[in-house]
């Protein structure tokens, strides 16, 4: 296995609603990540993650290519997924020896549409999508199942939100943050019982970019590269009624394959867009009390679609670079109720 490291990361300031177009949002982010990487263009490989459905325009992702600079022609790929999966593809490309450097970017403008309704289009088109179940209602099905199985309460969920919102005070990219108390949060009405507003990720528009470099070159351009020591992703059955929603079997398996348990984990950035999903993911990854969870505030404080997973990886890398962690876990999810999950293990030298 080749050594591949993340050497830089940049993200846009998230906004509830961006009026700039995708290229206008993305370009400064890509430029910043490239400038910080110490690698001059052209990159051996470029890969991006985004979803045309957010913008309502087929092939919308092609228009974002201006930000990557596709002249002379570049080796490029795109996934209709969170950018974390674009990073996975770039990592694989480097493993095959076909690339030494890769630019990975992601963006999502959810504000033009009704995101929870848009996400219904990713469901089974025969028996689920025609009912148009919104994404928050589906997450709430999982939340209730978990609460009833574990005996935990809505108060326990609110405490996760309170901690996340407090930690996000030091994150300039969070769209919500601050000191809240559990009682106030619990007094708010349900958005989709048993979930309240603080239990679900705030919708926003954003973008992020990351640069990957293989081998010694990473050491040349970066003082303390964040080495990818393990990365894996797994997906579960599509039909919700066939899955045990109270556990995340795919996260557990991806974590095992990536090697989570091999050594102590200092920090974990988990993509849990709903509060009940954080304990489900912690259990799947075996992350006990000694692990710092989501120092960025996590997705409950900013959730740019197609980007938040890549941001988890970038935030985890940042903790390696700044020395506050020696070993970090980053997780990304896709699909209803944690259907598909990616786990990435980062280590300092």
């Amino acid at each position, binding site marked *: 296995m080749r050594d591949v490291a993340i050497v830089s990361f940049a993200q846009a300031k998230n906004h509830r609603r961006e009026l700039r177009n995708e290229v206008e949002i993305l*370009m400064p982010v890509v430029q910043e990540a490239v400038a910080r990487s110490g690698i001059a263009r052209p990159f051996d490989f470029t890969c991006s993650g985004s979803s045309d459905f957010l913008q309502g325009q087929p092939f919308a992702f092609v228009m974002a290519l201006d930000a990557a600079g596709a002249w002379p022609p570049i080796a490029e790929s795109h996934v209709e997924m969170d950018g974390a999966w674009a990073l996975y593809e770039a990592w694989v490309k480097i493993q095959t020896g076909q690339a030494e450097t890769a630019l990975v970017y992601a963006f999502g403008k959810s504000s033009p*549409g009704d995101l929870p309704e848009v996400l219904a289009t990713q469901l089974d088109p025969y028996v689920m999508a025609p009912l148009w179940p919104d994404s928050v209602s589906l997450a709430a099905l999982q939340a209730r199942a978990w609460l009833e199985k574990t005996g935990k309460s809505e108060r326990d969920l609110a405490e996760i939100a309170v901690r996340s919102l407090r930690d996000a005070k030091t994150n300039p990219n969070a769209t919500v943050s601050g000191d809240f108390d559990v009682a106030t949060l619990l007094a708010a009405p349900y958005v989709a019982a048993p979930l309240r507003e603080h239990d679900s990720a705030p919708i926003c528009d954003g973008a992020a970019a990351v640069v990957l470099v293989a081998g010694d070159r990473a050491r040349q351009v970066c003082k303390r590269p964040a080495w990818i020591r393990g990365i894996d992703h797994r997906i579960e059955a599509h039909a919700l009624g066939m899955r045990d929603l109270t556990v995340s079997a795919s996260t557990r398996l991806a974590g095992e394959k990536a090697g989570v348990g091999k050594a102590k984990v200092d920090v974990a950035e988990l993509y849990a867009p709903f509060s009940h999903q954080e304990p489900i993911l912690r259990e799947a990854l075996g992350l006990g009390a000694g692990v710092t969870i989501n120092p960025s505030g996590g997705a409950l404080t900013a959730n740019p679609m197609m980007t938040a997973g890549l941001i988890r990886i970038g935030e985890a890398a940042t903790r390696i670079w700044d020395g506050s962690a020696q070993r970090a876990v980053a997780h990304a999810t896709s699909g209803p109720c944690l259907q598909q999950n990616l786990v990435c293990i980062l280590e300092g030298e």
Partner: protein
Amino acid sequence: MSDEQKPVTNIKTPMRLEYRYSAGIATSRFLHGIAQGKILGQRCPSCKKVYVPPRGSCPRCAVATEEEVELSDKGTITTYAVVRVPSENIDVPLPFASVHVLLDGADLPMFSVVQECPLEKIRMGMRVQAVWVPKEQLGPTLQSIRYFKPIDEPDVPADQLRETV
């Protein structure tokens, strides 16, 4: 077998999503210009090429483009196609010629249609000019330009168009 007895072989699953689309900074400036009867391109600070309609970025250099350039509404056809099927947003009789027009001063041709010209006379290198809607109907939409029509200027030779075809 009546329909009620035949097995179901397909289902209707219409999909409809509503959005509020934002044109972004560059396209908005372009459309505001159109509403005033002007065609505004943007110049790349690095390679100096002028793009129209502008998108706020240079596709070659991957840098933001901010410098605005007012372009002539006269240009040259760089390529064309004769279209015999209707298109939702194109309101001219069939058949018609869809064209790429390289406006004077621009480095990237823009899409439009040609009218007031027999189809067999349309050619690469032909000089054309925009026909706008009446002044009081101008708005922030490319439909403010109805079409391009031929003008009496000599054709531009093919080798001068090579880079922009």
